[in-house]
């Protein structure tokens, strides 16, 4: 098919602009096609190859952290009560909800990369859409866990669901907390389905070249897919519907999460800009997390250097820079209006943010979310360096976690009743938070051995659409719209 097509029909080996065909092939995955069978083998080998000692070490360490941080500590909290967590008057919302907002933010990257970039036909997305979609699903699982931890009496969580019970007590659907349930459930189900649909052809590919238990697993998950015209048509239509429809769902989730805060008339929270501010913040941390995942995959999995290249870090780096600017704009917008409003308690809160005992966190938030990305990501060379961009991704995530910490427990410290002011000191929330982080990484590590992280058919489709063309003396990359 495309790989044996002479793509450089119009291209000379060297042109006057100094870019040879080899240069383009090295730089762009889409211009460096390999036979499909070879790409399939590379992806299969990355999954089925004998795990290294590093893999087992990671699994054992992460498993241990999950067992202690999540399973044991949560069981202890259930037995002893939520009193062993640090939440208390006036900060009834602590790290559990910081982590909920944080993980929902991480989950935004998958939809952003997969749906928005698909709608806008951004070709660089192709090799890493699945890696990002997996982040969405696994991130939402951690968000769900964090909400359940916050509930305390988690065994009563089914009370949130609307069902005709014996006493005819319906949940109040006019409360932002019930909207949360609806929005997070909708987003979790939608993003899992959106992860699965494009996976079906790759499961069929894996089925065709596996044996033993893997063959049985992939056979079940491939659902009998062969790649007939009808199957592709149904799949393409469904993926188009998903790509368009999941975008407003993604926006709604974090907007609704922001309303948990903004709908209250508390100083610092009652802001009309919180919806978009939260969405941009979610994208900021999500893109940061996506670039970390890509760097880890590229560095640790076999053959991934072919699929994930400097061009991808460069493209994500640009997005991170733009999103950082947008975050700075929304932050300043929110700050400016609150500061100018002149409300006594809001002024007190802003002063507490900047010069209180956690003022260092407020300042670090600005450095991590704005100063560092702006200082590094403007430079193409730095932006194309995987370790550097992923380090910026880590720093952004630290900054975004600080931002949520400042919005939730720090802002709750100052209210209109000074006699209740008290600093929040976390208890078991720290172990539980580390447990969710370890579970997220563990799920990803295990999934990398079962799920093809590269959507091979999407990469091949992209390679079919790309070619080099000559305009005058210059060779340029040209993309055909195949759909």
């Amino acid at each position, binding site marked *: 098919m495309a790989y044996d097509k002479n793509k450089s029909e119009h291209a000379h080996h060297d042109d006057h602009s100094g870019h040879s065909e080899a240069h383009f092939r090295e730089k762009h995955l889409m211009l460096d096609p390999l036979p499909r069978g070879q790409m399939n083998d590379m992806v299969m080998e990355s999954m089925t190859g004998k795990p290294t000692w590093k893999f087992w070490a990671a699994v054992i360490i992460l498993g241990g952290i999950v067992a202690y941080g999540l399973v044991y500590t949560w069981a202890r909290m259930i037995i002893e009560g939520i009193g062993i967590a640090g939440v208390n008057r006036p900060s009834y919302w602590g790290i559990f909800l910081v982590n909920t907002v944080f993980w929902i933010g991480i989950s935004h990257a998958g939809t952003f990369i997969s749906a928005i970039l698909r709608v806008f036909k951004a070709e660089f997305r192709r090799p890493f859409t699945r890696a990002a979609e997996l982040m969405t699903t696994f991130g939402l699982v951690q968000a769900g866990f964090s909400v359940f931890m916050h509930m305390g009496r988690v065994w009563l969580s089914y009370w949130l669901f*609307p069902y005709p019970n014996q006493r005819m007590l*319906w949940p109040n659907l006019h409360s932002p907390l019930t909207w949360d349930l609806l929005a997070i459930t909708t987003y979790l189900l939608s993003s899992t389905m959106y992860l699965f649909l494009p996976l079906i052809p790759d499961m069929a590919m894996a089925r065709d070249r596996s044996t033993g238990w893997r063959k049985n697993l992939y056979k079940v998950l491939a659902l*009998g897919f062969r790649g007939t015209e009808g199957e592709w048509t*149904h799949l393409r239509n*469904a993926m188009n519907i998903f790509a368009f429809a999941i975008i*407003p769902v993604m926006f709604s989730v974090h907007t609704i999460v922001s309303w948990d805060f903004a709908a209250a008339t508390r100083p610092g929270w009652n802001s009309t800009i919180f919806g978009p501010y939260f969405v941009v913040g979610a994208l900021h941390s999500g893109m940061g997390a996506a670039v970390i995942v890509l760097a880890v995959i590229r560095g640790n999995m076999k053959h991934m250097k072919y699929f994930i290249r400097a061009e991808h870090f460069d493209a994500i780096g640009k997005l991170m820079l733009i999103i950082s600017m947008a975050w700075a704009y929304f932050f300043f917008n929110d700050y400016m209006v609150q500061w100018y409003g002149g409300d006594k308690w809001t002024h007190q809160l802003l002063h507490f943010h900047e010069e209180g005992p956690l003022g260092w966190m407020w300042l670090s938030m600005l450095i991590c979310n704005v100063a560092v990305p702006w200082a590094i990501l403007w430079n193409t060379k730095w932006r194309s360096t995987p370790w550097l961009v992923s380090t910026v991704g880590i720093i952004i995530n630290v900054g975004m976690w600080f931002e949520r910490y400042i919005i939730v427990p720090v802002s709750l410290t100052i209210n209109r009743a000074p006699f209740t002011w008290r600093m929040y000191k976390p208890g078991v929330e720290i172990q539980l938070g580390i447990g969710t982080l370890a579970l997220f990484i563990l799920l990803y590590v295990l999934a990398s051995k079962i799920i093809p992280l590269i959507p091979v058919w999407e990469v091949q489709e992209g390679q079919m659409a790309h070619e080099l063309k000559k305009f005058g003396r210059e060779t340029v990359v040209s993309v055909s719209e195949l*759909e």
Partner: protein
Amino acid sequence: MTEEKKVVDLLAVFSDLEPAADAVEQLRALGVHDDCMNVISGVPVTEAMLGRPRQWTNVPRIAMGGAILGFGAGFFLAFISPYLYPYPIQVNTHAFVPGPPTVVVLFELTMLGMLLSTFLGVFLDSFFPNYRPMKYVPEISDGKIAILVECPHMEEGKITDTLKKLGAESVKPAEAQHL
């Protein structure tokens, strides 16, 4: 069944799109109806690329149906469920069914209904899951394009020769196998 009426399925495997599209055209010229052909590929090759008639899909209609059902569920929860309390809770002068929160509930459930039904639509339209033996060769997921042709037994030789002349790597009777 008499020898003339006996029908066979042939599976021709091509390594490229162009000869596959030529083969579709040639088969049509030989009197094979479009309904008697099916193209199987490892990447989504559009009908236009192969010169094939547009495939019908019910997925958008099923999605629309799901959206309507979702909207209905949202309507029930937002408008009707408050009246199902044995002692309806009226808070001061607040509207019993307030507008903006209702929009949120309607939106979320409409989208959930639409996306769930879109997902199910793929299953319904594609008859997934299907674990029965099927006519297929694993080379397809290696990037080959296969044409599955249903033809009269009498025509088998002629069609095989034509497909081979057009560049088919192999043409053989299609056998249903467990995938």
